[in-house]
């Protein structure tokens, strides 16, 4: 039987609540401030009434919209490319000899574990050495390097869970390798592929540090935000931060729902 310690339980509860407040209060504040701007009338602080003005300003700002478009393109291309790469790596890992598989796995993970500033810097140097002009392509490459490990992990877990007998059963029934991949392996991996892609999208959408190094004239949304902060605080920043927060939260929610659905189906 579970022992009851009401005092300890209450204390733990309080600590948890305090932790959550510390985590989420700044986020809530930013979101709130995007709707209720701070006003200063002769040194006295106050709140303006509810308005969507910062959002309107945001939409009217062509540079921000261009940055958003860049971010979306980068996130989409990078997450799709990562998905394909991660799948290939995962297939290699389950079929290759253990030693080679582990070596490949370490190489895939390294860029994710390295400080982003080092990854960014090395990419920058490499692009310069081979005379590759910085732009959309370099941003995408930088993001792929960083997000492949995440997708790889998600995909590999599922692939290992499938085991070899489904592949063997499919081949046994006369299917070719390609038919087995299309009709058996990929459909069974769909939840992992979707959540991997969503995760990749979310990470790419928010990535700043590596992007700073490899971006040329194109800038992504986080970089734009960064640039705006440097020249001075404008209300649009709150609105932009709130939007990014919302997109990320929605993606996280989607991944959570997907994984729950998967767990229910498996049981």
């Amino acid at each position, binding site marked *: 039987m579970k022992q009851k310690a009401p005092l300890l339980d209450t204390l733990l509860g309080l600590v948890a609540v305090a932790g959550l407040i510390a985590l989420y209060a700044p986020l809530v504040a930013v979101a709130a401030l995007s709707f209720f701007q701070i006003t200063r009338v002769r040194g006295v602080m106050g709140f303006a009434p509810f308005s969507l003005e910062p959002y309107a300003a945001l939409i009217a700002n062509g540079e921000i919209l261009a940055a958003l478009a860049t971010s979306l393109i980068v996130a989409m291309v990078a997450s799709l490319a990562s998905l394909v790469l991660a799948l290939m790596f995962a297939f290699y890992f389950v079929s290759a000899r253990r030693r080679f598989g582990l070596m490949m796995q370490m190489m895939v993970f390294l860029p994710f574990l390295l400080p982003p500033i080092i990854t960014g810097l090395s990419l920058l140097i490499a692009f310069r050495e081979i005379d590759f002009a910085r732009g959309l392509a370099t941003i995408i490459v930088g993001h792929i390097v960083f997000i492949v490990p995440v997708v790889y992990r998600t995909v590999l877990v599922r692939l290992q869970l499938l085991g070899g007998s*489904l592949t*063997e059963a*499919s081949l*046994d*029934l*006369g299917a070719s390798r390609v*038919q087995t991949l299309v*009709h058996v392996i990929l459909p*069974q991996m769909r939840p992992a592929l979707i959540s991997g892609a969503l995760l990749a999208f979310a990470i790419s959408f928010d990535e700043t540090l590596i992007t700073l190094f490899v971006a040329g004239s194109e800038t992504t949304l986080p970089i734009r935000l960064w640039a705006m902060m440097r020249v001075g605080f404008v209300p649009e920043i709150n609105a932009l931060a709130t939007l990014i927060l919302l997109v990320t939260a929605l993606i996280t929610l989607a991944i959570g729902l997907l994984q729950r659905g998967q767990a229910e189906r498996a049981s």
Partner: protein
Amino acid sequence: MQPLLHLENISKRYGSVRVLDGIDITVADNEFLTILGPSGSGKTTILRIIGGFEGIDGGRLMFEGRDLASVPINRRPFNTVFQDYALFHHMNVAENVGYGLKVRGRPRAEIAAKVADVLETVGLGALGARYPAQLSGGQRQRVALARAIICEPRLILLDEPLSALDVELRAQMQRFLKSLQRRLGIAFVFITHDQEEAIALSDRIIVVHRGRIEQEGAPEQLYRRPRTPFIAAFLGENNLIAGTLAGVQGAVCRVETAAGPLHATVDGPAPLPGSAVLVAVRPEHITLAAAAPGALVAEVVEIRFLGANILIELRHPALPDTLIKVRRLADGSTARLSPGQRLTVGWAADDAALLVAKG
């Protein structure tokens, strides 16, 4: 007559471990062949070699006189029922069963008709739209079978398909498998570690032990005339009494033991007189009588009442390490037995098998 399938002198290693050594097996058309062995004996490896999931390190695999070495899994005219069924969980029953036809590019109408037909054969007519997760263990088993027979293979490989089922369902599936095999007229190669299952199902049994074939033959032949101590102990229960071969007359052998001369039967060539041999006799084949001079007289050590049967354990003074087990129908005469009593133990020569003792 040329066999359907012939494994010629096959050997297989995993690293430095030799898992199969000189395996020679033929499979005839329409035959229910069981490969029986304890776990780790190499029986599953044999099945995986036939299916094409494993390569071989020596020997040949011939199908109707053709070498299968260069024929990949998906081109072999065999289908497998896997131990864990390996059903495709994202497909419903009908899609699972029709998969083999679909990947061969058969027209939809033909697939639908055949799927309905095969589902009817395995008794799952109404469940085509269900998903594997919605089925019971026995039903999944039938789906796996249906999926394997739809492409009309020449041979079906079954890898311990009944091991995941409970006892009652197992017996039911055994009957079903046997009748299915008769109806289809396809050769079944069935892998199991369960000797009762093997005896109940098979036309022929091959017993594999430590990567080698220990003995093969019809179930009754194997049961009545085991040739090695391993078979004698693995298939049912046997009393083994050690001795020396004294003489052979026809098939009946006289064996000199510490307890006096005993007799047993040998099929095929007998070992040379003077060889160390064992007499194997089943507990149910031993008859009991009142003690008489010149016969094997033993003392009752323990009596175990098992309901319909009674198990009597006796010991002969000259064979202190051998407990002689006798199984009899429990009746009035066995009710009067008591420990310490001396009885004459005997058997017909035809009911005892002669084994060569392994040095």
